[in-house]
């Protein structure tokens, strides 16, 4: 959290890398890091003929939206976007509610077994999803939720990272504030959502962003539980269906147009709200 205030390690008169070497390094690394995404966007505006050309055309001479209109025909992009939005938004809302409530209990209540329950919940943060995938697939099937958006969403409505993040931040909310609300006769649920939540808005924003981006991007679970029901496919799964078109340079434009569409929402969110992402990583990384 102190990222922007304390800077120290290098001094101008110190031996080591010169200014120019530093500037060169920053520019070179930025180019290498940005190249794949820049190339993706540029390629999405190429005509099939331009994609095929050798030596390659780096910047399309006559930018064309052909690939974009074609991709919406191949994968029903509108429907996929709606599915992604439903999955990401609903899951995020669920995570916010369950994390706020549990985070509040762990931060402000004293009860037997608190540390044990907390440790058990947090341990799930280190469990790769593949370890539980096979029985989970069967369980959700048995509940009749397979091949549906509900089946994609329900198992992810609570997670350890959210509880951890909320506990960290709610611990910093003054007890007096909470006790004052109690004296006023507010119920505990009311206190969580109308006293505590407004006091930890930056943490809520960070968690919402992370959850939204994570569940917009997630692939393994929807692929497993939707069982080929392409009507309910989120955009990342529909992109996977471009695989059959992903042979040879002919379809590069098409594939890149699809990829650009899928990347856009998380990237736009990030560019505008980057501070929240970075702050929350810094706080969980260091205090964790």
């Amino acid at each position, binding site marked *: 959290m102190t990222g922007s205030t304390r800077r120290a390690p290098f001094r101008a008169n110190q031996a080591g890398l010169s200014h120019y070497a530093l500037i060169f390094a920053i520019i070179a690394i930025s180019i290498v890091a940005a190249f794949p995404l820049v*190339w993706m966007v540029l390629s999405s505006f190429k005509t099939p003929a331009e994609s095929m050309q050798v030596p390659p055309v780096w910047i399309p001479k006559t930018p064309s939206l052909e690939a974009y209109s074609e991709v919406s025909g191949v994968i029903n992009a509108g429907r996929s976007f709606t599915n992604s939005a439903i999955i990401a938004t609903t899951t995020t809302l669920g995570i916010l509610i369950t994390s706020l409530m549990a985070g509040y209990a762990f931060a402000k209540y004293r009860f037997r077994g608190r540390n044990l329950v907390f440790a058990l919940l947090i341990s799930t943060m280190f469990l790769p999803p593949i370890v539980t995938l096979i029985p989970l697939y069967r369980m959700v099937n048995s509940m009749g939720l397979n091949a549906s958006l509900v089946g994609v969403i329900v198992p992810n409505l609570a997670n350890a990272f959210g509880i951890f993040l909320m506990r960290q931040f709610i611990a910093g909310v003054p007890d007096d504030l909470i006790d004052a609300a109690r004296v006023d006769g507010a119920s505990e649920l009311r206190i969580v959502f109308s006293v505590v939540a407004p006091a930890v808005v930056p943490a809520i924003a960070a968690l919402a962003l992370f959850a939204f981006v994570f569940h917009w991007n997630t692939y393994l679970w929807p692929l497993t539980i939707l069982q080929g029901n392409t009507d309910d496919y989120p955009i990342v799964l529909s992109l996977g269906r471009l695989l059959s078109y992903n042979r040879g340079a002919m379809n590069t434009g098409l594939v890149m147009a699809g990829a650009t569409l899928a990347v856009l929402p998380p990237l736009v969110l990030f560019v505008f709200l980057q501070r929240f992402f970075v702050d929350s990583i810094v706080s969980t990384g260091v205090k964790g």
Partner: protein
Amino acid sequence: MSMNAVSKQPVATMLAPAVILIGVFIFVPMLLTIWLSFHQWSSQTGFNTAEFVGLRNYEDIFGPLSVGRDFKRAFTNTAIYTALSVVIILPLSVLLGLLVYQRRVRGGTFLRTVLFATYMVPMIAVALVWSKLYSPTEGPINQILAVIGIGEQPWLSSPDTALVSIVILNVWQQVGYFTVLAIAGLTQIPPSLYEAARIDGANAIQEFFGVTLPLLRRTLLFSAVIAVINAVQVFEPVALITQGGPAGATNVLTYHIRRVGIERAQGGIGSAMAVMLMLSLIVVIIALFAFARKGNEE
């Protein structure tokens, strides 16, 4: 806190949603995975059809037949993939973190934005883009290499280079996150320690190894654990581009377990593999903590 306040603690109400969801959708399936690993069971049928077979699934996945060969290959591939990812990502994240953190020239924050942006990109899009970048004949990477006189590389299409190619795209996607962690660690180092080192006449390199690196140990431990857990989850590039090939070179555990346990419906065998993955992770994480503690005592 007053007694009145203590009596007003509806612990159960507050914890129920999270505890029930995590219990039902993570702990129950985790225990079921262990239980199923001792059974023969088709994942297309109910749990009640599972038939106890003792340790046979474990004997099979370590045995000489194709089930065992495939698992051992997938396990080795995952271990190599994970080790390479961690060994590349950790030093790179510290280096990039120092570049972002330094104040001598501007552009550090811009670099951080570019690096972290890639972490927001869905892995499936990363896989699609890189499958084109890696394309042997018309792919931009080989085109650029040709300009500087390096011949055509096979990348994803050769058993020798396919796994490393996926490591590279994984590093590209993830390094921004670990850079931000490294920066967080750097901000925690008190400037007074650098001043003290300078008074003792330390140069930049001595400063790095004497002050920066030792004080980043906690951050690096955390980064290593997360990098390991992320690495064993690699799935999209394999499922989408290589399907585990060529010649099994990119068959990694997440892909293999899903293929065996769900697509081939061999739920018991798949579960035994998942248990082995879980045990291996526990061992690796304990080893990382032990390694960090040993460093502390020195």
